[in-house]
């Protein structure tokens, strides 16, 4: 299932395009081929469990890729966003609360996205407008979100209706292996998939994407050709917050169906690892998100059917241990350079 995304890990690397096949690209493609072969093998061996793991993979990946896209828009513009965790949590809370009170899942999603936008704007105001240290600005969001949602958390409240249900996409859903995993999903998953493709094209091909790269790499140069660096950074960081907001709504209304304390559970930070591993491109990030999602799904499946006699807490560590190993081994895929102006506030002369 990562066959399509494999080569993209490499194409995504260069803003100026790719010449020939780099070793990283060969590794990515080889890895993708092996992965597809394995998945196919397991599917032949135990169809039901493989389908369940693949479904779980896509479910976990959706949240991660939304967060990663939020992070990459910011980072490509030169702003580090470590507040994704807080953006997830806060928007999950408002999405759930609004959906529960109004009885409309759609209004819940609107509330979640709006919350994400508002938090994105707050991050922009702190790190772009006031030129606060960006790490501190993000931390402020995380702490605020945890505090506020815990304080207003209402244990007794329930959604009062079923969460978003799967929609079968006709015959596509009957495909072997990927049918259920990709084409029999609830609506926000489809939306996220569309956003991945659209944002990928926009970032790499559009005028907006090019200007975004410019303000993250060399804001001074962008300013000399008439690009309003501050304004574009504000817009980008704010709009990116909407993606994290959608992630929060997805978490509460589609993935879980309720709100619990600190339910984002570190996945906002994991999204940053996904972003870096995906080389700050949406398709790359989706490939990475599927990989991390797979470890999450596998972990869930292990706990479910007691395959190994290991305490659940240790099995639950799997995604995080893999994160550490993978990020440490990411050198295998070639070191990627950060945007040159990342983390540096821009000051108009």
């Amino acid at each position, binding site marked *: 299932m990562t066959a399509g995304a494999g080569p993209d890990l490499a194409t995504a690397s260069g*803003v*100026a*395009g790719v010449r020939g096949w780099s070793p990283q690209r060969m590794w990515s493609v080889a890895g993708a081929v092996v992965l597809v072969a394995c998945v196919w093998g397991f599917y032949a061996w135990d169809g039901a469990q493989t389908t369940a793991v693949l479904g779980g993979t896509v479910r976990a990946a959706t949240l991660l890729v939304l967060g990663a896209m939020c992070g990459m828009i910011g980072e490509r513009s030169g702003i580090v966003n470590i507040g994704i965790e807080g953006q997830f949590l806060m928007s999950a809370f408002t999405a759930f609360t609004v959906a529960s009170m109004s009885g409309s899942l759609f209004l819940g999603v609107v509330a979640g996205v709006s919350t994400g936008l508002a938090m994105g704007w707050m991050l922009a105001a702190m790190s772009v407008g006031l030129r606060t240290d960006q790490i501190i600005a993000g931390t402020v969001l995380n702490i605020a979100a945890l505090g506020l949602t815990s304080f207003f958390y209402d244990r007794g409240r329930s959604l009062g209706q079923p969460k978003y249900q799967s929609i079968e996409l006709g015959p596509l859903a009957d495909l072997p292996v990927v049918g259920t995993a990709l084409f029999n999903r609830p609506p926000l998953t489809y939306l996220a998939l569309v956003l991945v493709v659209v944002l990928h094209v926009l970032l790499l091909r559009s005028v907006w994407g*090019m200007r975004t*790269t410019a303000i993250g790499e060399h804001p001074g*140069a*962008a300013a*000399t050709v008439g*690009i309003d660096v501050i304004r574009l950074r504000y817009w980008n960081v704010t709009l990116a917050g909407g993606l994290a907001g959608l992630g929060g709504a997805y978490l509460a209304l589609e993935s879980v169906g309720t709100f619990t304390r600190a339910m984002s559970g570190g996945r906002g930070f994991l999204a940053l690892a996904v972003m870096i591993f995906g080389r700050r491109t949406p398709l790359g990030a989706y490939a990475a998100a599927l990989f991390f999602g797979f470890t999450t799904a596998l972990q869930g499946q292990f706990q479910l059917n007691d395959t190994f006699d290991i305490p659940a807490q240790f099995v639950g560590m799997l995604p995080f241990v893999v994160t550490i190993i993978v990020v440490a081994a990411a050198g295998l895929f070639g070191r990627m*350079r950060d945007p040159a102006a990342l983390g540096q506030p821009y000051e108009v002369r």
Partner: protein
Amino acid sequence: MVATAVSQAEPEVLLAGHGITKCFGPVVANDDVSVELRPGRILALLGENGAGKSTLVNVLFGLHRPDAGQVVIADENVELSSPHDAIARGVGMVHQHFQLVPPMSVVRNIVLGAEPRKLGMIDVTQARRRVLELADRFGLHVDPDAAVEDLPVGAQQRVEILKALYRDARVLIADEPTAVLTPQETDHLLDVLRGLTAQGVGIVFITHKLREVMAAADDIVVLREGKVVGTTTPAQTSEAALAELMVGRAVDLHGDRFESGATGVGSAAPAEIAADDAAPTSEAMAADDPERPVVLDIAGLCADDDRGQRAVDELSLEVRAGEIVGVAGVEGNGQRELVEAITGLRHATAGTVSISDRDASGARPRQVTVIGVGHIPEDRAKHGLIGSYSVADNSVLNRYFKRPFAAGGMLRRDRIDSHARDVVATFDVRTPDVESPADSLSGGNKQKLIVGREFSDEIDLLIAAQPTRGIDIGAIEFIWHRIRERRDGGTAVLLVSAELDEVLALSDRVVVMYEGRIVATVDPRTATREEIGLLMAGAAPGTECSVAGG
């Protein structure tokens, strides 16, 4: 957008400033300055650092608003509130530090901010076509699809020029455009600028290099301390006269051994040159003397650059006591990595370095210092000084841990301060007191502080990297004298400089570095700039220049 430049009615004056005055606090950067640029001409703005050249062009380009005076663009009085106003009126700037986005392609860099578009996407075909048209028309050839970071500096500069032309510039302001170029690239650039003037473009050319002014300018305006001190043309003046105007007194840079002239200034004082050559010639000759001990001995040294590419490639070099060996080369040919590998700032991947017969391969910076090596690093802000520390603390950065500056793990403030006062007095560092932060000093005074620090201990070897970059002639003069003094006192000196003039003026022996190797050794007394320029550009050394120095 592109083809209009020539067809419009010719304005009489392309760009002018009348009575421009600009103050920054108590500092008067421009005092009633008037300049005028007409179509098809090259106006050279000449002056030392701090003379007000940059302030003036920043006013003309809309970056600063003048306190008094009038800016004129294309015969019209204008008020510029930002560079965009200037750009919109056809004024383009070729910045000294290129305003390019390194990982983006040439085409994208050129069209950035004024992109041809189709449904919000960049119309790549059209952008590419326009860029190629422009490149063709002005003879500025460059690969449109290459990433800017992969291009040599000369090509990056062409991109910068194309960027201005793409925006219909009829005036190009070029800020020290030759600072980073080889002599050949410089000649090429001057040709390109000439070609632009033939198509009606006017050029403001900022420089402190007299030779280029004499070669390229139609009109010359000399600035000193914010005022216009001379308006002339190359036909009416000479390099010596310009130098005197620029500095305000006759300049003596000593050891200016040939007519072509270091910074072209030396020809002002031929008598002193003769005197200089007579006295230390014995020293200079002795430099080749095998009796003198080899102080720095590098054999088969290899080192990688920050991207992991080999930058120094099996390089071998000897520097003897009492000689200055100059390393000439275009920046980025491994000079930085060579210096860092010698001084312990960079890991050498192969080869040996020995200093005064002691193995210093893989030594840490402090060990290198303790052996008796002085290092004037190329980036004084990054490696030379700690800006927020006081002048006093900076004056002992290389020795604060030793007696008499430290005892029992505690710093001896009194000793440090009195040492700092010595350095400040001896090396003419202009600072209110030794407690001021190093950041508050001007570039030239920072550099004098570094030189003072490195010279205040006994050293056998001096590594001087770009020792006079970006400082005024007075300070250059001072530092050159000090380096020569050290040489005459028996110190071995390795001089690395991007300024060929500096290398030629100071060195007893010149080695040319190209792609991490030493491709030739030449005698600065006989070699010409052209020969060395070719070697710097990678031409195979001819027999006549490879035999020198031995």
